[in-house]
């Protein structure tokens, strides 16, 4: 009896879920193995992580705060990846957003607007800035078919240098040695929720998640985005202007990433400070892949990631394992997810010998 390996037509929900389960299991086992190799007690470490992430109200708040920016960048990535437009520039667009809001604040310091007008205005400014920074590669791709991956990555570096220049120059707080602006006026502070440290940004992010869901699955534009991603040829035949979709996708994606930047500085730091983003943009890509390019998945993944990040601080108290362990596990999970989903696409089939 001979066997042959053939590719399935479709993987189906059951096998897809199974592959995710296997991926997570293998990752957890690997993680436990690494912890053990470190000489640490797996149980203690895992407990510490949990305690640090969900163990108390304070921990939970911190988790949600950490989840906010990456939830937004993850959503930004969804919009692009669903169209198979490979936006790797969320980090730069996030910076653009933060800088855009900063620009408005610093240029009009005596606005004296009530917060309820000032804040949306600033967030809008950050969205516009992010959209511009995303629109550049979007236009180049749509019109000239220039590789958006390279351009977005390059723009990441360029804008961060621009930011450094500004923070060390015209935007620097007078008399300060550090790379930061003056503190923003109180009317720009994102209000806190329920008397905790959790700022409005989290709700904004959740709202955005819902809006993205609505966009992708309930709106005509979302329909065209998905069509372009899944079958650009048929999309073309059926009247969808795929180039227009490409550009709009990048504008939107950039806008949401920009929003993440605005939210982060208006909610946490209240000034533009160097290093305010610890790779939120890139983490967003990770989150999107983990969350299977779906808003619900991204919400879960971002909270999961925020939890791990928080928990890793606690983990440091109880063990010697470095914080970057968390990043590694997240990376491992995605690799496993890709791997197992692909493996489950194949199956063994018996073939009868032909005499």
């Amino acid at each position, binding site marked *: 009896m001979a066997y042959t390996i053939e590719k399935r037509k479709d993987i189906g929900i059951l096998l897809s879920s199974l592959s995710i389960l296997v991926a997570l299991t293998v990752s957890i086992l690997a993680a436990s193995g690494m912890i053990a190799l470190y000489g640490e007690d797996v149980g203690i470490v895992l407990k510490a992580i949990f305690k640090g992430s969900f163990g108390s109200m304070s921990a939970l708040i911190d988790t949600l705060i950490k989840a906010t920016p990456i939830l937004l960048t993850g959503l930004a990535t969804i919009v692009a990846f669903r169209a198979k437009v490979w936006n790797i520039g969320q980090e730069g667009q996030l910076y653009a957003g933060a800088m855009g809001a900063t620009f408005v604040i610093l240029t009009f310091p005596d606005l004296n607007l009530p917060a309820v007008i000032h804040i949306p205005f600033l967030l809008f400014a950050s969205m516009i800035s992010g959209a511009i920074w995303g629109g550049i590669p979007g236009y180049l791709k749509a019109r000239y078919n220039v590789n958006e991956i*390279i351009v977005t990555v390059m723009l990441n*570096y360029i804008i961060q240098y621009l930011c450094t220049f500004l923070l060390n120059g015209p935007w620097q707080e007078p008399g300060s040695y550090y790379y930061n602006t003056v503190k923003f006026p109180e009317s720009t502070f994102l209000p806190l929720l329920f008397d905790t440290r959790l700022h409005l940004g989290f709700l904004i992010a959740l709202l955005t998640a819902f809006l993205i869901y609505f966009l992708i699955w309930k709106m005509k534009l979302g329909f065209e985005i998905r069509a372009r991603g899944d079958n650009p040829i048929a999309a073309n035949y059926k009247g969808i202007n795929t180039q227009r979709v490409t550009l709009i996708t990048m504008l939107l994606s950039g806008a949401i990433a920009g929003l993440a930047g605005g939210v982060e500085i208006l909610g946490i730091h209240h000034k533009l400070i160097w290093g305010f983003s610890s790779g939120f943009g890139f983490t967003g*890509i990770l989150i999107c892949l983990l969350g299977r390019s779906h808003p619900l998945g991204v919400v879960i993944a971002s909270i999961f990631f925020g939890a791990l990040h928080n928990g890793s601080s606690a983990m440091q108290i109880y063990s010697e394992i470095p914080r970057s*362990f968390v*990043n590694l596990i997240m990376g491992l999970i995605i690799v496993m997810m890709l791997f197992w989903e692909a493996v489950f696409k194949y199956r063994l089939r018996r073939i009868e010998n032909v005499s």
Partner: protein
Amino acid sequence: MLVDFLQSGLIISVLATAVRMGTILLLAALGELIVERAGVLNLSVEGMMLSGAFGGFLGAYYTNSLWLGVLSAIIAGLLVSALFGLLAVILQIDQTVSGLTVNIFAAGLTFYLYRTLFPNVGAANIPALKPFSKFQIPYLSDIPIIGKILFSQYALSYIAFFMMLLVAFYLYRTKSGLILRTLGENPRAVDMKGINVTRYRFFAVLFGGMMAGLAGAFITLASVGIFVADITSGRGWLAIAIVIFGDWKPVKILWASLFFGFIDAMQMQLQALGVQLPFQLFLAMPYILTTVAVFLARKRSGAPLALGVHYVRE
């Protein structure tokens, strides 16, 4: 101002640095050239270089031998590329997604291992080793000006030049190279000759990994002697752009690499000279230039026709 610059002998220093920076990029770009010529788009070059940089540092640090460090850098790059090859070539997962994922994973793994093996590192006690010193080619390095620029480089630069010649020869003069090039244009043609497309592409990917690892070693083991996070600062992406800008041809890639190296070198010198422009502008130069380069190259005809497309036998 400019006259001072030209007369000060700085220009020699700049050009020498240009060669050094350029050959780092050249190594990675040559590796990616082979991979893309075989039809595979590997976006994890940055991750592979970083792995090589770290692996090289690690190897040299523990064995006290720089060349063993180079070897471990190559192995590190090889392992990361093997993961990419498994996902993208063997399992035929989308090449873009595979490359980005492996990039993220390699970066995470590298940083984790660094923190694990060197805990509690601060600016004061950063682990360092004695890096390579420049190798002066006898007689040739005494030639005025050119001698300093071309013949007083690190050994790895000479290796890079040699690899360029080797890659060019391989691609255009060997049977295997012809097969590789055909793989990138029309894999079916290769399949019909009874050659295993998957295997060939996988080995091409591995070569790319080794070269990227080597490039990474160059960064940590020559002139710097330390490893820090993001020491590669996007050079992997520059390498990918150089392949495009060099129209997928070895000689053009050489010039493109040297040019980018020159920009890098200029940026360092201009800062030192106190030129009245923000230094960040110079730091950003390579990236600005890359963006311009890919825009100019948008009509480049050298892209392998089957690049990025999985081969499925009909």
